[in-house]
């Protein structure tokens, strides 16, 4: 078949923070850059980020520096992070944030006119550069508006269906444009995956329709290794009522600004369970916690700002033990601060404008006056494409990954705010190294038979005689993952989940789509199923294999941490026969200087 074909040196798949930052850097490297995204430009997940960007600028607390940020990130990730990525991230994030300001981003300010930083879970000092609670919008708009003047070509509403190869190396991508449903081929010397997360594998999620794990799955099917897939972040505070808004995120910034979690008895249950590694840094009374949120440097942080995995489990426990709120969550209360400050209502509206708006409009709740009802929601995946820390290249030559679809920096649990900074730091690095790779290698050749095969598979759902509804399959998969591979896991349930995935894969192969190829969401849903099923299988397999509890991965049958598992990552790859293979791979030895940094910041 013949396809409309485009040629690039560097092709970036995904226009969230990571993809945009990568495309900007690759363009600066003097090569021809193409940028693809499934939605319109500026609508990627990054736009929804609320709380802020973590960077040790030390504008609010001068005790902060990269070493503290590095140690916080490693502790949060329970030490199975890629330490080199955590180090680069902590060192480079401040420059990446300042660069955004130079490109026009406007952050909230300190009284002396510098970038203001706020408190967030697991960060020792106020560290998140922010603009109210719409930091992601500021970031994506800044990158987008800066980027379009840098010479890159943007192809919006284009979905990559498979990666093309030239022998062992990457050669480009194949996919369809939404509007007319036409197939296109993009040839490129280097491809950067920046496709974000996979929250749509679960029923309750903060993620949009885009979060179907495409990059994870595309990489896997083209021979790249994935790691840490068992580590899923369930954000403790998603909306739970009314049903229509279930899963929508309530930013951690609410707690950063003094919001507290209480059960139906009015008890601040987070004080009841403070994990050992955090005991020294956590307030043991309400007054100290409040003073911390108001910038008192001698105070320790309130337990609501412990890491997300822990807070989510505590909420889960309250609900299970019958102390939950009417709709099966707990209460998140920011209105209470009126006891501590005048003008509290105005203060809340100014600090958390979009949360105010969101609850007012969608739940008929005025958060300046009443408590919110919240519960855990599937939010983020720590696992992803295994990459080289410095260059972000995967084990497939020419294939890079950055942002949420790459793995390593977060280990077993991500700290809030560390994603936006990750996108900037590693987006830039991926762009830089991909441009270098493209300059050093000739344009690849490839056999169009690969595209023909992908095209053939892609149009199968239109063939007559099929009956499976792709939406139903997606829904059933989400239900199974939610129930069987959720916050609290058990071996037998996860084995059942694998069986469900297998059955659904068979059914997905006969999914039927009505109508034609032009802007047909039924077709898009059918094609995304392969990715969702692939990542679901990877999550379940890794989660079964890690027989311990750590970070985002909690096993009821193995509730403790096991030191042996603290030394390995789970690596997933596709075998020659097409089956999924799992391997425990030892972590790289941390250099003594970094060990010492961690020791000093214990």
């Amino acid at each position: 078949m013949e396809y409309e074909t485009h040629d690039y040196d560097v092709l970036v798949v995904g226009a969230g923070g990571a993809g945009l930052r990568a495309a900007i850097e690759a363009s600066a490297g003097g090569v021809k850059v193409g940028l693809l995204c499934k939605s319109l430009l500026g609508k990627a997940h990054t736009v929804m980020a609320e709380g802020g960007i973590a960077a040790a600028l030390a504008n609010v607390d001068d005790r902060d520096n990269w070493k503290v940020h590095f140690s916080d990130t490693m502790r949060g990730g329970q030490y199975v992070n890629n330490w080199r990525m955590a180090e680069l991230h902590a060192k480079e994030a401040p420059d990446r944030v300042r660069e955004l300001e130079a490109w026009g981003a406007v952050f909230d300010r300190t009284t002396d006119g510098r970038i203001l930083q706020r408190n967030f879970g697991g960060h020792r000092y106020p560290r998140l550069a922010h603009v109210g609670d719409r930091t992601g919008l500021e970031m994506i708009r800044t990158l987008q508006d800066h980027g379009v003047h840098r010479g890159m070509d943007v192809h919006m509403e284009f979905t990559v269906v498979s990666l093309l190869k030239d022998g062992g190396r990457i050669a480009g991508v194949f996919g369809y444009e939404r509007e007319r449903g036409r197939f296109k081929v993009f040839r490129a010397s280097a491809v950067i995956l920046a496709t974000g997360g996979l929250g749509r594998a679960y029923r309750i999620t903060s993620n949009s329709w885009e979060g179907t794990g495409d990059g994870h799955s595309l990489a896997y099917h083209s021979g790249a290794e994935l790691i840490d897939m068992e580590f899923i972040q369930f954000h403790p505070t998603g909306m739970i009522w009314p049903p229509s808004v279930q899963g929508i995120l309530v930013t951690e910034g609410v707690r950063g600004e003094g919001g507290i979690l209480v059960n139906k008895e009015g008890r601040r249950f987070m004080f009841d369970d403070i994990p050992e590694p955090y005991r020294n840094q956590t307030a043991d009374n309400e007054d100290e916690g409040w003073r911390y949120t108001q910038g008192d440097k001698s105070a320790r942080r309130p337990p609501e700002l412990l890491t997300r995995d822990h807070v989510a489990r505590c909420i889960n426990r309250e609900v299970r033990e019958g102390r939950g709120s009417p709709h099966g969550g707990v209460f998140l209360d920011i209105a209470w601060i009126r006891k501590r400050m005048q003008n509290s209502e105005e203060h809340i509206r100014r600090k958390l404008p979009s949360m105010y708006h969101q609850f007012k409009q969608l739940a008929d709740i005025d958060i300046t006056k009443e408590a919110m009802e919240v519960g855990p929601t599937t939010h983020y995946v720590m696992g992803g494409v295994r990459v080289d820390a410095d260059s972000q290249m995967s084990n497939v030559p020419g294939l890079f990954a950055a942002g949420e679809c790459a793995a390593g920096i977060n280990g077993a649990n991500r700290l809030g705010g560390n994603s936006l900074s990750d996108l900037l730091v590693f987006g830039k690095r991926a762009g830089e190294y991909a441009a270098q790779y493209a300059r050093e290698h000739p344009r690849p050749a490839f056999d169009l038979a690969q595209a023909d095969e992908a095209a053939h598979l892609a149009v199968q759902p239109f063939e007559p005689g099929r009956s499976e509804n792709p939406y139903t399959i997606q829904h059933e998969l989400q239900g199974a993952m939610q129930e069987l591979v959720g916050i609290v896991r058990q071996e037998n349930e996860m084995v059942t989940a694998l069986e469900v995935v297998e059955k659904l894969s068979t059914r997905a192969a006969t999914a039927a789509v009505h109508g034609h190829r032009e802007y047909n969401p039924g077709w898009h849903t059918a094609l995304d199923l392969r990715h969702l099923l692939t990542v679901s299988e990877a999550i379940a397999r890794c989660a079964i294999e890690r027989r311990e509890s750590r970070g985002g991965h909690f096993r009821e049958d193995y509730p403790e941490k096991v030191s042996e598992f603290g030394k390995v990552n789970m690596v997933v790859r596709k075998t020659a026969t097409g089956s999924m293979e799992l391997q425990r791979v030892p972590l790289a030895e941390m250099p003594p200087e970094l060990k010492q940094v961690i020791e000093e910041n214990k």
Partner: protein
Amino acid sequence: MAQATFRVWRGASGGQFHDYTADVVPGMVVLDAIHQIQATQAGDLACRWNCKAGKCGSCSAEINGKPRLMCMTRLNDLPLDEPVTVEPMKAFPPIRDLVTDVSWNYTVKKKIKPFKARKPDAPDGTWRMSQSDVDRVQEFRKCIECFLCQDVCHVLREHALHPEFIGPRFLVYTAALEMHPLDDEDRLADLKGDHGIGYCNITGCCTKVCPEEITITENAIIPLKERVVDRFYDPVKRLFRVFSG
């Protein structure tokens, strides 16, 4: 369970309305109904959405004739004893069902001179701004690019002056840049010329539909118009400029 009828536009220009019945649950928004119809009755019903929380500006449509975000329009705010009509924005070429071709907006934006930072204030290459300066531009920077204001503006919707007028969204964008505490660029000549600010006759319709509650007319357009007038029509200033070169 309670049900409601949704009269949804199907097809492109030559399309027609089609009635669907959907179950109504508490708190439901129009986008939920569209999703329900997709999943159970019309798998190929085309619409855009991402965040489902009024943050991304993807799900713009006309609901009962009003430009609104589908994800922020609650069913309990609509009369459900009659069909709820849902149709695409009218100021842009239709693609299919609820999806329109908004690419013109991206082209327009690229024509506006980008942000240009003044020299850094501090030796370390950073700037100082006060929170009050920041607050002034925040209103404009909240824009989620839903293009509902573009949809409602008669200059674009009725007169189709797309080639000559950038529309309220991009007047807001220009205001955000012009009032940015660090920006050093000058966009007034463009505003008066190619960007056609003169076409706006301050009807205020754009402000009324903005889901982000940006006071587009009073806070963005009028101040820009005043700046243009000051620069190009104030005789004293013009004379001054002639003499000072």
